[in-house]
Protein backbone atom coordinates (compact mmCIF):
# COMPACT_ATOMS: atom_id res chain seq x y z
CA UNK A 1 0.00 0.00 0.00
CA UNK A 2 0.94 3.66 -0.24
CA UNK A 3 3.09 4.90 2.62
CA UNK A 4 2.95 8.44 3.93
CA UNK A 5 4.09 10.29 7.04
CA UNK A 6 2.44 13.29 8.76
CA UNK A 7 3.93 16.64 7.88
CA UNK A 8 5.46 18.62 10.78
CA UNK A 9 2.73 20.47 12.70
CA UNK A 10 4.52 23.83 12.25
CA UNK A 11 4.34 23.46 8.48
CA UNK A 12 0.60 22.77 8.58
CA UNK A 13 -0.04 25.64 11.03
CA UNK A 14 1.84 27.91 8.69
CA UNK A 15 -0.52 26.94 5.85
CA UNK A 16 -3.76 27.44 7.79
CA UNK A 17 -2.99 30.20 10.30
CA UNK A 18 -4.90 32.88 8.38
CA UNK A 19 -8.06 30.79 8.00
CA UNK A 20 -10.81 30.29 10.56
CA UNK A 21 -12.83 27.28 9.46
CA UNK A 22 -10.64 24.30 8.80
CA UNK A 23 -11.69 20.87 7.59
CA UNK A 24 -9.20 18.09 8.29
CA UNK A 25 -10.04 15.34 5.81
CA UNK A 26 -8.57 11.90 6.35
CA UNK A 27 -8.84 8.72 4.32
CA UNK A 28 -9.74 5.21 5.50
CA UNK A 29 -7.43 3.61 2.93
CA UNK A 30 -3.66 3.26 2.84
CA UNK A 31 -2.89 6.25 5.06
CA UNK A 32 -4.99 4.73 7.84
CA UNK A 33 -2.90 1.56 7.67
CA UNK A 34 0.39 3.47 7.90
CA UNK A 35 -1.10 5.69 10.63
CA UNK A 36 -0.52 8.96 8.83
CA UNK A 37 -3.97 10.05 7.63
CA UNK A 38 -6.81 8.07 9.20
CA UNK A 39 -9.44 9.22 11.71
CA UNK A 40 -7.00 8.88 14.61
CA UNK A 41 -4.48 11.16 12.93
CA UNK A 42 -7.23 13.56 11.82
CA UNK A 43 -8.30 13.92 15.46
CA UNK A 44 -4.72 14.44 16.62
CA UNK A 45 -4.11 17.11 13.98
CA UNK A 46 -7.49 18.74 14.66
CA UNK A 47 -6.74 18.97 18.40
CA UNK A 48 -3.31 20.45 17.72
CA UNK A 49 -4.79 23.07 15.40
CA UNK A 50 -7.47 23.98 17.94
CA UNK A 51 -4.80 24.37 20.59
CA UNK A 52 -2.80 26.63 18.30
CA UNK A 53 -5.78 28.85 17.41
CA UNK A 54 -6.85 29.06 21.05
CA UNK A 55 -3.39 30.04 22.25
CA UNK A 56 -3.08 32.55 19.42
CA UNK A 57 -6.44 34.03 20.43
CA UNK A 58 -7.99 33.45 17.03
CA UNK A 59 -11.60 32.51 16.24
CA UNK A 60 -11.70 29.07 14.81
CA UNK A 61 -13.75 26.04 13.88
CA UNK A 62 -11.88 22.82 13.16
CA UNK A 63 -13.77 19.77 11.91
CA UNK A 64 -12.31 16.32 11.40
CA UNK A 65 -13.66 13.63 9.13
CA UNK A 66 -12.59 10.77 6.91
CA UNK A 67 -13.96 9.11 3.79
CA UNK A 68 -13.58 5.53 2.64
CA UNK A 69 -11.16 6.58 -0.12
CA UNK A 70 -10.16 10.02 -1.33
CA UNK A 71 -9.15 8.52 -4.68
CA UNK A 72 -12.80 7.86 -5.62
CA UNK A 73 -15.17 10.68 -6.46
CA UNK A 74 -18.19 8.81 -5.10
CA UNK A 75 -16.66 8.97 -1.64
CA UNK A 76 -15.34 12.51 -2.06
CA UNK A 77 -18.88 13.60 -2.91
CA UNK A 78 -19.86 12.77 0.69
CA UNK A 79 -17.67 15.69 1.81
CA UNK A 80 -19.63 18.32 -0.13
CA UNK A 81 -21.31 20.13 2.77
CA UNK A 82 -18.29 20.03 5.02
CA UNK A 83 -15.97 21.35 2.32
CA UNK A 84 -18.40 24.15 1.43
CA UNK A 85 -18.60 25.18 5.06
CA UNK A 86 -14.79 25.37 5.43
CA UNK A 87 -12.40 28.18 4.48
CA UNK A 88 -9.62 25.71 3.88
CA UNK A 89 -9.15 21.96 3.81
CA UNK A 90 -6.17 20.00 5.09
CA UNK A 91 -6.21 16.63 3.38
CA UNK A 92 -4.20 13.92 5.07
CA UNK A 93 -4.81 11.38 2.32
CA UNK A 94 -1.94 10.40 0.03
CA UNK A 95 -0.90 12.74 -2.77
CA UNK A 96 -3.47 11.13 -5.07
CA UNK A 97 -6.32 11.74 -2.63
CA UNK A 98 -5.25 15.32 -1.95
CA UNK A 99 -5.23 16.10 -5.65
CA UNK A 100 -8.51 14.38 -6.40
CA UNK A 101 -10.19 16.26 -3.57
CA UNK A 102 -8.78 19.50 -5.02
CA UNK A 103 -10.10 18.55 -8.44
CA UNK A 104 -13.60 17.90 -7.04
CA UNK A 105 -13.77 21.11 -5.01
CA UNK A 106 -11.95 23.40 -7.33
CA UNK A 107 -12.81 26.71 -5.67
CA UNK A 108 -11.56 25.64 -2.25
CA UNK A 109 -8.02 25.93 -0.92
CA UNK A 110 -6.63 22.49 -0.08
CA UNK A 111 -3.37 21.90 1.78
CA UNK A 112 -1.41 18.66 2.12
CA UNK A 113 -1.09 17.34 5.67
CA UNK A 114 1.19 14.40 4.88
CA UNK A 115 4.25 13.63 2.80
CA UNK A 116 3.62 10.69 0.47
CA UNK A 117 6.61 8.41 0.02
CA UNK A 118 6.24 5.07 -1.73
CA UNK A 119 4.45 1.79 -2.21
CA UNK A 120 5.58 -0.53 0.51
CA UNK A 121 4.97 -3.14 3.12
CA UNK A 122 4.49 -3.06 6.89
CA UNK A 123 7.71 -4.66 8.08
CA UNK A 124 6.94 -4.06 11.72
CA UNK A 125 4.95 -1.59 13.80
CA UNK A 126 6.12 1.79 12.52
CA UNK A 127 8.51 0.33 9.96
CA UNK A 128 7.51 0.62 6.34
CA UNK A 129 9.72 -0.53 3.51
CA UNK A 130 9.59 0.11 -0.22
CA UNK A 131 9.15 -2.94 -2.38
CA UNK A 132 7.72 -1.86 -5.73
CA UNK A 133 8.68 1.15 -7.84
CA UNK A 134 5.66 0.84 -10.12
CA UNK A 135 7.81 0.60 -13.26
CA UNK A 136 4.90 -0.86 -15.20
CA UNK A 137 6.73 -3.96 -16.45
CA UNK A 138 7.30 -6.50 -13.72
CA UNK A 139 10.59 -8.42 -13.81
CA UNK A 140 10.10 -10.42 -10.61
CA UNK A 141 9.79 -13.70 -12.51
CA UNK A 142 13.45 -13.54 -13.52
CA UNK A 143 14.90 -12.07 -10.35
CA UNK A 144 13.79 -14.57 -7.76
CA UNK A 145 10.83 -12.45 -6.73
CA UNK A 146 12.97 -9.52 -5.54
CA UNK A 147 12.72 -6.28 -7.45
CA UNK A 148 16.03 -4.78 -8.64
CA UNK A 149 14.32 -1.53 -9.65
CA UNK A 150 12.98 -0.85 -6.16
CA UNK A 151 15.68 -2.58 -4.12
CA UNK A 152 18.93 -1.64 -5.90
CA UNK A 153 19.99 1.99 -5.32
CA UNK A 154 21.10 2.16 -8.94
CA UNK A 155 18.10 0.17 -10.23
CA UNK A 156 20.59 -2.08 -12.05
CA UNK A 157 19.32 -5.00 -14.06
CA UNK A 158 22.76 -6.60 -14.10
CA UNK A 159 23.95 -6.21 -10.53
CA UNK A 160 25.39 -6.41 -7.96
CA UNK A 161 27.75 -3.49 -8.51
CA UNK A 162 31.25 -3.40 -7.04
CA UNK A 163 29.98 -1.58 -3.97
CA UNK A 164 28.06 -4.58 -2.61
CA UNK A 165 29.71 -5.64 0.63
CA UNK A 166 28.64 -8.20 3.21
CA UNK A 167 25.10 -8.07 1.88
CA UNK A 168 24.85 -4.30 2.21
CA UNK A 169 24.51 -1.53 -0.35
CA UNK A 170 27.33 0.96 -0.82
CA UNK A 171 25.06 3.85 0.15
CA UNK A 172 24.46 2.64 3.72
CA UNK A 173 25.13 -0.22 6.08
CA UNK A 174 21.39 -0.14 6.85
CA UNK A 175 20.40 -0.84 3.26
CA UNK A 176 20.43 -4.44 2.08
CA UNK A 177 21.98 -4.95 -1.35
CA UNK A 178 19.04 -5.87 -3.59
CA UNK A 179 21.22 -7.94 -5.87
CA UNK A 180 22.75 -9.81 -2.96
CA UNK A 181 19.21 -10.80 -1.99
CA UNK A 182 18.43 -11.77 -5.58
CA UNK A 183 21.56 -13.90 -5.77
CA UNK A 184 20.78 -15.69 -2.50
CA UNK A 185 17.26 -16.40 -3.66
CA UNK A 186 18.32 -17.64 -7.10
CA UNK A 187 20.88 -19.89 -5.43
CA UNK A 188 18.19 -21.30 -3.15
CA UNK A 189 15.97 -21.95 -6.17
CA UNK A 190 18.83 -23.51 -8.14
CA UNK A 191 18.45 -20.74 -10.74
CA UNK A 192 21.83 -19.00 -10.61
CA UNK A 193 22.07 -19.62 -14.37
CA UNK A 194 19.41 -16.93 -14.76
CA UNK A 195 22.09 -14.52 -13.65
CA UNK A 196 24.60 -15.31 -16.40
CA UNK A 197 22.78 -13.78 -19.35
CA UNK A 198 23.05 -9.97 -19.75
CA UNK A 199 19.65 -8.34 -19.34
CA UNK A 200 18.87 -5.86 -22.12
CA UNK A 201 18.15 -2.16 -21.51
CA UNK A 202 14.76 -1.62 -19.96
CA UNK A 203 11.84 0.13 -21.57
CA UNK A 204 11.23 2.93 -19.07
CA UNK A 205 8.22 4.27 -20.97
CA UNK A 206 5.96 2.22 -18.74
CA UNK A 207 7.57 3.90 -15.74
CA UNK A 208 7.24 7.57 -14.74
CA UNK A 209 9.66 8.42 -17.57
CA UNK A 210 6.85 8.06 -20.12
CA UNK A 211 4.97 10.99 -18.55
CA UNK A 212 1.89 10.86 -16.31
CA UNK A 213 0.42 7.41 -16.67
CA UNK A 214 -3.13 6.38 -17.48
CA UNK A 215 -4.51 2.84 -17.58
CA UNK A 216 -7.54 2.27 -19.76
CA UNK A 217 -9.01 -1.18 -19.23
CA UNK A 218 -11.54 -1.61 -22.00
CA UNK A 219 -12.68 -4.92 -20.50
CA UNK A 220 -13.66 -3.14 -17.28
CA UNK A 221 -15.23 -0.19 -19.06
CA UNK A 222 -17.54 -2.50 -21.00
CA UNK A 223 -18.45 -4.64 -18.02
CA UNK A 224 -21.57 -3.98 -15.97
CA UNK A 225 -20.84 -2.66 -12.46
CA UNK A 226 -20.63 -5.66 -10.17
CA UNK A 227 -22.88 -5.88 -7.18
CA UNK A 228 -20.72 -5.74 -4.08
CA UNK A 229 -17.88 -3.98 -5.85
CA UNK A 230 -16.16 -0.87 -4.51
CA UNK A 231 -18.82 1.40 -5.97
CA UNK A 232 -21.85 -0.45 -4.70
Amino acid sequence: MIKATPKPLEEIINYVKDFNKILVAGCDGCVTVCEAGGMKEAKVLGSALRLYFTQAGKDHEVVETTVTRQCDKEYLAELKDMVENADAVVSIACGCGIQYLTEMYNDKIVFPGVDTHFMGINADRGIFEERCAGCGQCVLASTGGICPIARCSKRMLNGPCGGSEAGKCEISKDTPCGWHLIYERLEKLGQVDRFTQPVDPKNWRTSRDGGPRVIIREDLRKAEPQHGSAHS
Partner: protein
Amino acid sequence: MEPKTPSRLEKIMAAGQLGVTSEVGPPRGADGAEIEHKGHLIKDYVDAVNVTDNQTSVVRLCSLASCIRLKQMGIDPVLQMTTRDRNRIAMQSDILGAASFGIHNMLCLTGDHQTFGDHPMSANVFDLDSVQLIQTVKMMRDEGKLLSGFEMKVRPQIFIGAAENPFAGPNVELRALRLGKKIAAGAEFIQTQCIYNIPKFKEWMKIAVDKGYAEKAYIMAGITPFKSLGMARYMKTKVPGMDVPDNLIDRLKGVPKEKQADEGIKMAIEMMQELKEVPGVRGFHIMAIEWEEKVPELVKGAGLYPRPQV
Protein backbone atom coordinates in the same frame (compact mmCIF):
# COMPACT_ATOMS: atom_id res chain seq x y z
CA MET B 1 42.83 -12.52 -30.34
CA GLU B 2 43.07 -10.28 -33.40
CA PRO B 3 42.78 -6.53 -32.76
CA LYS B 4 39.46 -5.10 -33.93
CA THR B 5 40.19 -1.41 -33.51
CA PRO B 6 43.09 1.04 -33.95
CA SER B 7 43.59 1.08 -30.16
CA ARG B 8 47.27 0.91 -29.22
CA LEU B 9 46.38 -0.85 -25.98
CA GLU B 10 44.47 -3.53 -27.86
CA LYS B 11 47.33 -4.08 -30.32
CA ILE B 12 49.89 -4.47 -27.54
CA MET B 13 47.83 -7.01 -25.62
CA ALA B 14 46.81 -8.83 -28.81
CA ALA B 15 50.53 -9.22 -29.54
CA GLY B 16 50.85 -11.10 -26.25
CA GLN B 17 52.56 -8.32 -24.32
CA LEU B 18 51.42 -7.14 -20.90
CA GLY B 19 49.43 -3.93 -21.30
CA VAL B 20 49.88 -0.97 -18.96
CA THR B 21 47.33 1.74 -18.32
CA SER B 22 47.06 4.44 -15.73
CA GLU B 23 44.54 7.13 -14.99
CA VAL B 24 44.20 10.87 -14.83
CA GLY B 25 41.62 12.47 -12.57
CA PRO B 26 40.47 15.79 -14.07
CA PRO B 27 40.46 18.92 -11.88
CA ARG B 28 37.47 20.39 -10.02
CA GLY B 29 37.68 23.50 -12.15
CA ALA B 30 38.29 24.58 -15.73
CA ASP B 31 42.08 24.11 -15.70
CA GLY B 32 42.76 22.11 -18.85
CA ALA B 33 46.51 22.54 -18.40
CA GLU B 34 46.41 20.30 -15.34
CA ILE B 35 45.21 17.37 -17.43
CA GLU B 36 48.03 17.97 -19.87
CA HIS B 37 50.52 18.19 -17.01
CA LYS B 38 49.35 14.85 -15.58
CA GLY B 39 49.39 13.35 -19.07
CA HIS B 40 53.00 14.41 -19.57
CA LEU B 41 54.05 12.74 -16.31
CA ILE B 42 52.94 9.30 -17.46
CA LYS B 43 52.70 9.30 -21.24
CA ASP B 44 55.88 7.35 -21.97
CA TYR B 45 55.19 4.73 -19.33
CA VAL B 46 51.73 3.54 -20.30
CA ASP B 47 49.89 2.35 -23.40
CA ALA B 48 46.73 4.26 -22.69
CA VAL B 49 45.44 6.70 -20.07
CA ASN B 50 42.02 6.40 -18.44
CA VAL B 51 40.18 9.59 -17.64
CA THR B 52 37.72 9.23 -14.80
CA ASP B 53 34.09 10.36 -15.17
CA ASN B 54 33.20 12.49 -12.13
CA GLN B 55 34.69 9.84 -9.86
CA THR B 56 33.04 9.30 -6.49
CA SER B 57 30.23 11.50 -7.85
CA VAL B 58 32.24 14.69 -7.42
CA VAL B 59 31.87 17.22 -10.25
CA ARG B 60 35.04 17.54 -12.30
CA LEU B 61 36.04 18.68 -15.75
CA CYS B 62 34.39 16.18 -18.07
CA SER B 63 36.05 12.96 -19.16
CA LEU B 64 35.35 13.48 -22.86
CA ALA B 65 36.96 16.93 -23.05
CA SER B 66 39.94 15.65 -21.05
CA CYS B 67 40.31 12.68 -23.40
CA ILE B 68 40.33 15.02 -26.39
CA ARG B 69 43.13 17.05 -24.77
CA LEU B 70 45.17 13.89 -24.16
CA LYS B 71 44.53 12.64 -27.69
CA GLN B 72 45.84 15.92 -29.06
CA MET B 73 49.05 15.30 -27.07
CA GLY B 74 49.51 11.94 -28.79
CA ILE B 75 48.21 9.89 -25.85
CA ASP B 76 45.73 7.05 -26.39
CA PRO B 77 42.93 7.88 -23.95
CA VAL B 78 40.45 5.52 -22.30
CA LEU B 79 37.12 7.33 -21.98
CA GLN B 80 35.51 6.30 -18.71
CA MET B 81 31.74 6.58 -18.83
CA THR B 82 29.31 6.01 -16.00
CA THR B 83 25.58 5.49 -16.49
CA ARG B 84 24.77 7.51 -13.37
CA ASP B 85 24.44 10.95 -14.94
CA ARG B 86 23.37 10.40 -18.52
CA ASN B 87 20.64 8.48 -20.27
CA ARG B 88 21.11 6.36 -23.38
CA ILE B 89 20.64 9.38 -25.64
CA ALA B 90 23.45 11.38 -24.03
CA MET B 91 25.78 8.41 -23.72
CA GLN B 92 25.48 7.33 -27.35
CA SER B 93 25.97 10.95 -28.39
CA ASP B 94 29.15 11.21 -26.30
CA ILE B 95 30.43 7.92 -27.70
CA LEU B 96 30.02 9.27 -31.22
CA GLY B 97 31.71 12.51 -30.22
CA ALA B 98 34.64 10.60 -28.71
CA ALA B 99 34.99 8.41 -31.78
CA SER B 100 35.00 11.48 -34.01
CA PHE B 101 38.20 12.57 -32.23
CA GLY B 102 39.85 9.18 -32.64
CA ILE B 103 39.25 7.99 -29.09
CA HIS B 104 39.41 4.22 -29.37
CA ASN B 105 39.07 2.93 -25.81
CA MET B 106 36.21 3.07 -23.35
CA LEU B 107 35.66 1.84 -19.82
CA CYS B 108 31.96 1.22 -19.23
CA LEU B 109 30.84 1.73 -15.62
CA THR B 110 27.65 2.11 -13.63
CA GLY B 111 29.34 4.61 -11.33
CA ASP B 112 29.29 5.30 -7.61
CA HIS B 113 25.96 6.41 -6.18
CA GLN B 114 25.64 10.20 -6.05
CA THR B 115 25.23 10.20 -2.27
CA PHE B 116 29.03 9.87 -2.04
CA GLY B 117 29.77 13.05 -3.93
CA ASP B 118 29.49 16.79 -3.66
CA HIS B 119 25.89 16.85 -4.95
CA PRO B 120 24.11 14.21 -2.86
CA MET B 121 20.74 15.88 -3.55
CA SER B 122 20.97 15.36 -7.29
CA ALA B 123 18.69 13.06 -9.25
CA ASN B 124 20.39 10.03 -10.73
CA VAL B 125 19.76 8.50 -14.12
CA PHE B 126 20.81 4.83 -14.32
CA ASP B 127 18.79 4.41 -17.50
CA LEU B 128 21.30 1.67 -18.38
CA ASP B 129 23.74 -0.21 -16.18
CA SER B 130 27.36 -1.03 -17.00
CA VAL B 131 26.52 -4.32 -18.72
CA GLN B 132 23.96 -2.59 -20.91
CA LEU B 133 26.43 0.20 -21.74
CA ILE B 134 28.89 -2.47 -22.89
CA GLN B 135 26.16 -3.99 -25.08
CA THR B 136 25.43 -0.55 -26.49
CA VAL B 137 29.03 0.19 -27.47
CA LYS B 138 29.35 -3.25 -29.04
CA MET B 139 26.17 -2.79 -31.04
CA MET B 140 27.31 0.63 -32.23
CA ARG B 141 30.70 -0.71 -33.28
CA ASP B 142 29.90 -4.18 -34.64
CA GLU B 143 26.42 -3.67 -36.06
CA GLY B 144 26.76 0.01 -36.86
CA LYS B 145 23.48 0.63 -35.07
CA LEU B 146 22.24 2.82 -32.28
CA LEU B 147 20.02 1.24 -29.62
CA SER B 148 17.08 2.61 -31.60
CA GLY B 149 18.11 0.46 -34.54
CA PHE B 150 19.19 3.48 -36.59
CA GLU B 151 22.04 2.54 -38.91
CA MET B 152 25.04 4.85 -38.87
CA LYS B 153 27.16 5.61 -41.91
CA VAL B 154 30.33 5.81 -39.82
CA ARG B 155 30.73 3.47 -36.87
CA PRO B 156 32.72 4.24 -33.74
CA GLN B 157 35.81 2.03 -33.38
CA ILE B 158 36.14 1.35 -29.72
CA PHE B 159 38.08 -1.23 -27.71
CA ILE B 160 35.49 -2.06 -25.06
CA GLY B 161 36.52 -2.12 -21.42
CA ALA B 162 34.76 -2.90 -18.18
CA ALA B 163 35.65 -2.99 -14.53
CA GLU B 164 35.10 -5.82 -12.10
CA ASN B 165 35.59 -6.01 -8.37
CA PRO B 166 36.69 -9.51 -7.30
CA PHE B 167 36.38 -8.46 -3.65
CA ALA B 168 32.79 -7.24 -3.56
CA GLY B 169 29.83 -9.28 -2.35
CA PRO B 170 28.21 -11.73 -2.22
CA ASN B 171 31.25 -13.94 -2.96
CA VAL B 172 34.11 -14.58 -5.33
CA GLU B 173 32.08 -17.05 -7.42
CA LEU B 174 29.40 -14.50 -8.19
CA ARG B 175 32.03 -11.84 -8.96
CA ALA B 176 33.55 -14.24 -11.49
CA LEU B 177 30.12 -14.98 -12.96
CA ARG B 178 29.56 -11.27 -13.32
CA LEU B 179 32.91 -10.94 -15.08
CA GLY B 180 31.65 -13.60 -17.49
CA LYS B 181 28.44 -11.64 -17.95
CA LYS B 182 30.34 -8.49 -18.87
CA ILE B 183 32.46 -10.45 -21.33
CA ALA B 184 29.33 -12.04 -22.79
CA ALA B 185 27.94 -8.53 -23.21
CA GLY B 186 31.02 -7.51 -25.19
CA ALA B 187 33.79 -6.42 -22.81
CA GLU B 188 37.22 -7.06 -24.31
CA PHE B 189 39.42 -5.75 -21.53
CA ILE B 190 38.81 -5.68 -17.81
CA GLN B 191 40.42 -3.33 -15.34
CA THR B 192 39.95 -4.74 -11.86
CA GLN B 193 39.34 -2.95 -8.61
CA CYS B 194 42.55 -2.18 -6.66
CA ILE B 195 44.06 -5.48 -5.56
CA TYR B 196 45.44 -5.85 -2.05
CA ASN B 197 44.14 -9.29 -1.10
CA ILE B 198 46.22 -11.37 -3.49
CA PRO B 199 45.00 -14.82 -2.36
CA LYS B 200 41.41 -13.78 -2.99
CA PHE B 201 42.32 -12.27 -6.35
CA LYS B 202 44.00 -15.54 -7.33
CA GLU B 203 40.88 -17.43 -6.34
CA TRP B 204 38.79 -15.18 -8.60
CA MET B 205 41.32 -15.40 -11.39
CA LYS B 206 41.34 -19.19 -11.22
CA ILE B 207 37.58 -19.29 -11.77
CA ALA B 208 38.00 -16.83 -14.65
CA VAL B 209 40.64 -19.06 -16.24
CA ASP B 210 38.73 -22.31 -15.62
CA LYS B 211 35.54 -20.88 -17.12
CA GLY B 212 37.43 -19.62 -20.16
CA TYR B 213 36.75 -15.93 -19.45
CA ALA B 214 40.45 -15.08 -19.35
CA GLU B 215 40.83 -16.23 -22.96
CA LYS B 216 38.01 -14.00 -24.13
CA ALA B 217 39.12 -10.74 -22.54
CA TYR B 218 42.36 -9.16 -21.38
CA ILE B 219 42.28 -8.94 -17.61
CA MET B 220 44.34 -6.06 -16.27
CA ALA B 221 45.16 -6.13 -12.57
CA GLY B 222 44.30 -2.92 -10.71
CA ILE B 223 47.11 -1.42 -8.63
CA THR B 224 46.91 1.52 -6.23
CA PRO B 225 50.01 2.24 -4.15
CA PHE B 226 49.52 3.36 -0.56
CA LYS B 227 50.80 6.88 0.07
CA SER B 228 50.58 6.49 3.83
CA LEU B 229 49.24 4.37 6.66
CA GLY B 230 46.30 6.76 6.87
CA MET B 231 45.38 6.12 3.25
CA ALA B 232 45.60 2.35 3.74
CA ARG B 233 43.27 2.58 6.73
CA TYR B 234 40.89 4.80 4.80
CA MET B 235 40.80 2.34 1.90
CA LYS B 236 40.16 -0.51 4.31
CA THR B 237 37.34 1.08 6.25
CA LYS B 238 35.74 3.79 4.11
CA VAL B 239 35.84 2.75 0.46
CA PRO B 240 33.03 0.38 -0.54
CA GLY B 241 34.12 -2.95 -1.97
CA MET B 242 37.78 -2.60 -0.96
CA ASP B 243 39.60 -5.51 0.69
CA VAL B 244 42.82 -4.53 2.50
CA PRO B 245 44.34 -7.35 4.57
CA ASP B 246 45.72 -6.50 8.00
CA ASN B 247 49.25 -7.67 7.17
CA LEU B 248 49.61 -4.78 4.69
CA ILE B 249 48.46 -2.28 7.31
CA ASP B 250 50.91 -3.81 9.81
CA ARG B 251 53.77 -3.52 7.32
CA LEU B 252 53.12 0.21 6.90
CA LYS B 253 52.81 0.61 10.66
CA GLY B 254 56.29 -0.87 10.97
CA VAL B 255 58.00 1.97 9.11
CA PRO B 256 58.43 5.62 10.22
CA LYS B 257 55.86 8.05 8.82
CA GLU B 258 58.28 9.73 6.40
CA LYS B 259 59.22 6.35 4.91
CA GLN B 260 55.64 5.10 4.43
CA ALA B 261 55.27 6.45 0.89
CA ASP B 262 58.44 4.65 -0.21
CA GLU B 263 57.23 1.50 1.48
CA GLY B 264 53.88 1.84 -0.31
CA ILE B 265 55.63 2.00 -3.69
CA LYS B 266 57.80 -0.98 -2.76
CA MET B 267 54.73 -2.99 -1.78
CA ALA B 268 52.96 -2.12 -5.04
CA ILE B 269 55.97 -3.22 -7.09
CA GLU B 270 56.20 -6.50 -5.20
CA MET B 271 52.50 -7.08 -5.85
CA MET B 272 52.92 -6.39 -9.55
CA GLN B 273 55.85 -8.81 -9.70
CA GLU B 274 53.74 -11.48 -8.08
CA LEU B 275 50.64 -10.76 -10.18
CA LYS B 276 52.62 -10.92 -13.43
CA GLU B 277 52.97 -14.64 -12.81
CA VAL B 278 49.27 -15.27 -12.16
CA PRO B 279 47.70 -17.11 -15.12
CA GLY B 280 45.21 -14.90 -16.93
CA VAL B 281 46.74 -11.56 -15.94
CA ARG B 282 47.35 -9.69 -19.21
CA GLY B 283 48.32 -6.28 -17.94
CA PHE B 284 48.14 -3.67 -15.19
CA HIS B 285 45.94 -0.70 -14.54
CA ILE B 286 47.76 1.66 -12.19
CA MET B 287 45.50 4.02 -10.29
CA ALA B 288 47.97 6.27 -8.49
CA ILE B 289 45.40 8.58 -6.97
CA GLU B 290 46.75 12.18 -7.03
CA TRP B 291 50.20 10.60 -7.25
CA GLU B 292 50.66 10.33 -11.02
CA GLU B 293 54.37 11.22 -10.74
CA LYS B 294 55.00 7.81 -9.19
CA VAL B 295 53.70 5.86 -12.20
CA PRO B 296 57.10 5.77 -13.98
CA GLU B 297 58.76 4.31 -10.88
CA LEU B 298 56.09 1.61 -10.59
CA VAL B 299 56.26 0.67 -14.27
CA LYS B 300 60.06 0.50 -14.20
CA GLY B 301 60.08 -1.37 -10.90
CA ALA B 302 57.74 -4.01 -12.26
CA GLY B 303 60.00 -4.51 -15.29
CA LEU B 304 57.43 -3.12 -17.71
CA TYR B 305 59.55 -0.34 -19.19
CA PRO B 306 60.19 0.54 -21.99
CA ARG B 307 56.72 0.14 -23.43
CA PRO B 308 56.45 -1.77 -26.72
CA GLN B 309 56.05 0.29 -29.89
CA VAL B 310 53.19 -0.68 -32.19
